[in-house]
Structures are given as structure tokens and as C-alpha cells.
């Protein structure tokens, strides 16, 4: 999967689960949407849901051993959740 495909997968998941994830109806989901942290659209609980679901969906696309968890992933300065695009790039790098 390339970054574009992953971005699309993430946006689709967020769009489908807006209510469950408590995403306000007026929030436009773009590739620059901040996922978590300052101005983020998700709280910590819903971020876990997103990570687990995206990991599951990508695993089902032919990457059964994908592990999105990385000690660096949750560091403040290098957070991959700064935007949908950055998260997607992070995932596609882990697929290589």
C-alpha cells in the first residue's frame, strides 16, 4: 500500500465512525487534519481505536505482521499523529 491509499483508508474510517469517535460534524477531514494533541480531533481513547483499526485493516490488505506500535511513535516531538498525512507516511514506511 502506498501513502495515498493509506490516507484514503484513514479518512474513510474516520468518516464512517464520526459519531463513535466524537468527531464534530463541522470538522472537515483532510490530509492535514490533526489527529491527536493540540487541535487534534481525537482523545486518547479514540486514538487507540483508530490505531488498532487501521493496523487491522492494513494487516488484512496483505501485511499480517504489521506492528504500528513503536516506542518512538508516542514521543511528543515525533508523534506520527500530527496529521492524517504524517500518520499515513509513518505507516507506509513501516510496510517497507
Amino acid at each position, binding site marked *: 500500500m502506498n501513502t495515498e491509499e493509506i490516507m484514503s483508508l484513514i479518512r474513510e474510517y474516520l468518516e464512517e465512525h464520526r459519531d463513535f469517535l466524537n468527531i464534530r460534524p463541522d470538522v472537515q477531514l483532510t490530509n492535514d487534519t490533526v489527529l491527536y494533541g493540540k487541535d487534534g480531533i481525537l482523545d486518547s481513547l479514540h486514538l487507540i481505536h483508530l490505531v488498532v483499526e487501521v493496523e487491522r485493516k492494513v494487516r488484512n490488505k496483505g501485511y*499480517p505482521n504489521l506492528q504500528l506500535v513503536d516506542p518512538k511513535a508516542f514521543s511528543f516531538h515525533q508523534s506520527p499523529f500530527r496529521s492524517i498525512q504524517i500518520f499515513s507516511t509513518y505507516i507506509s514506511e513501516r510496510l517497507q
Partner: protein
Amino acid sequence: MKTFLITGTSRGLGHELAKHYLSEGHEVIGFSRSSSTINHSRYRHFEADITDLDKVLSCLSTVKKVDVLVNSAGMASMNSLLLSAPGSLRKMLQLNVEAPAFLIQETAKIMMTAKKGRIINISTVATSLTLSGESHYIVSKAALEKLTETASRELYQFGITVNTIGLSLMQTDLIKSVPEEKINNILSGLTVKEWVKPQDVINVIDFLTADSSGQITGQQINLGGVCR
């Protein structure tokens, strides 16, 4: 019908648990390093060393449903700290802590989709009794018990409970090398001076996995009348 994932199903407690829950009409997924010792239409076996986390992940990628995880596989070492082999603690931590932690992590992801699940870690009353001559084993099982507590806090929000059962003396391979004198000393110090039977463990698992036990999480239930 529930789906149980049980580690260490080739022998000992894991084997007895698998056979019991199959006889009750449930599905059982088993892990052990050796080939399957159970032949049943509702039994699925993974021949894998659970300390090989990549292998475990590959196996679990084909599993769609787990209601109950029982981390039963484990190893013991009954040695004085002064006579423990270099590296033995690392091996024990891998099997008794790292592997269960990874199984909890990956199984919880499966359980999250159902918004419910039960995880049970099998530990020992040796941690509560701080028995001498078992330092590496006790250290690893104490870590497992703390894992239960922290995982219970993190996973309850997803409808998953995590508890520990502390076994007192049970006739398994784990204690076959323990001298009879030591066994008798331990037994005499217990409130319940009897060997634990698989049915005693099943009784607690049935309680913890009941739909009505949703409030019970982060707890340790010791057998043999041993207080924590």
C-alpha cells in the same frame, strides 16, 4: 458458544482446560511448542513457541474471534538464587511475562471489535508466600501479576477484564523436580492442605468469564487459602 484461546495445551493445566471447554461445547484455540495432543472438530492448534512473537502474530492474524484468553503456559525454576544459571531469568521473563503480554496486546485487539473479552493469567501463590529457592520464578510471576493490574486499567474501557488465578500446588511438570520434603513443607503451610485439581481452576475461570462478572477486573484469586 465461546472461543477460548489457551496457551500450553499440549500438557498440564492448559491441556485439561482445553479438553474441558471443548466438552462444554466451546471452541478452543491452543498454542504449544509441540504438535497437537487434542483431536477435536472444535479445536484449532498452533504449533509455536510463544516467545517467538513474530510467529505468534502470524498465527493470530488468522484468528477472527476470541472471547477468553487464558495465559496458562509457563516455566518454573526451583533453584537457589546463588545456584541459578546465567540467562535463566531472561528465559523465564520471556515465557512468563513477555509472551503473555504480547498475547494480551494482540488478543485484546481482536476482543475490542466485539467490545468484550476476558483475560486470565495463571500465576502462583509462591509470589504471595515469597517462597525461598524460587527467586527467578517468583520475580517473573510477580511481573505477570502486575501486568494483570495495569492491563485491567487500560482494557476495561474496551469491555475487557483481566484477572489472575494464583495456583497453589498442582501436580504438573512444573514441580516434578521439587523434592518431596519441600512439597510437604509448602503444603503444611497452606490453609487448604490439598493439591489443586484442574476443576478448582475451572471453577474460578467460570466465575471470571461469566457475563455477570464484569465488575471483577485487576484481581488475583489465590487457591489454597493463601492471602495476597
